[in-house]
C-alpha cells in the first residue's frame, strides 16, 4: 500500500497513522478536515479507513456474555471461603 504519495497536501503515511485518532474524534477540527479532504481524494486510504471503522463496529457489537454459571459458582465459593 502506498504511503509516500501526497494527496490533498498530506502523505498517505501520515493519514494512515492518524486514522484511529480521527475515527475517535481526537484530532483538532483543522487536522480532521485535512484528513477528510485526503480521504475524499484517496481511494486507498478511504477504503482502509472504512475497513478499520467496520472492524471497530463489529467489535463493539459483540454481545457481553454473562459469566458461565459454573465459573460464577466457583467464584462465589472462593469468596465465601475467604469471608
Amino acid at each position, binding site marked *: 500500500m502506498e*504511503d509516500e504519495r501526497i494527496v490533498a497536501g498530506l502523505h498517505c503515511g501520515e493519514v494512515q497513522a492518524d486514522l484511529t485518532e480521527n475515527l475517535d474524534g481526537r484530532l483538532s477540527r483543522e487536522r480532521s478536515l485535512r484528513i477528510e479532504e485526503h480521504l475524499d481524494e484517496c481511494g486507498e486510504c478511504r477504503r482502509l479507513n472504512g475497513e478499520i471503522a467496520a472492524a471497530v463496529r463489529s467489535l463493539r457489537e*459483540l454481545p457481553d*456474555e454473562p459469566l458461565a454459571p459454573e465459573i460464577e459458582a*466457583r467464584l462465589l465459593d472462593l*469468596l465465601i471461603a475467604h469471608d
Partner: protein
Amino acid sequence: MSDADDARISDETLIGLTAAGDFAAFDRLVRRHQAAVYRFARAAAPSGEDVEEILGAAFLAARRGAARYRDEPSARTWLLALARRIIDRRYPRTNREADSTPLRDLVRSAARGSLEEHGAPVAAALEALAPEDREILTLCDREYFTADEASRVTGLSETAVRTRLHRARLRLLARLKEDGLGR
C-alpha cells in the same frame, strides 16, 4: 431486591459497605462486574489456563483494598486495574511493551484483501491476537474506556494507549481478512 432497586445503589456505596465488612454488598458488586473482569482477564492474560484464578484473585484484592478505594474514574477501572496487576505479577512484562513492527508493515497487512471476501468472525479474530492487542481493544472498544481510563488500568501513558490501539485495530483488521479463521 429487584434489579431496579439494585441499580439504584452505586458502586461506590457497595465498595464502602464492603470496606465495612458487608459481604452481601460485596457480592452485589461482584455480580455487577464479574463478567467484565473475566472478559478482561481472558483478553489480557497470555495464557487462558489461569483466567479463573485471576478473576478470583482480583475480587479478593478488591475486598481487601475496598477501604482504600478513592479517586478512581469508576469501580470498573479499579477492578480491571487490580486484575491487571495480578496478571503482571504472574507474567512479568519484560518485553511486553515492545512493538517494533513498522507501522507501514501493519498498514500493508491490514489493507491486503477485503472484508467482504473472507469475513472471519470478529470474536475469533480478537482471540487470535496477542494479549497486548486483545487487552487494549477490550478496554477501548468493548468497555469504551477513554485513553485516561485505559492508561490507569494498563499503566501505559495515554499516548502509548492511543498508539497501541491503532496498531491493535490494524492487526484485528488483518486477522479479520485471513481466510478460514474461526470457521
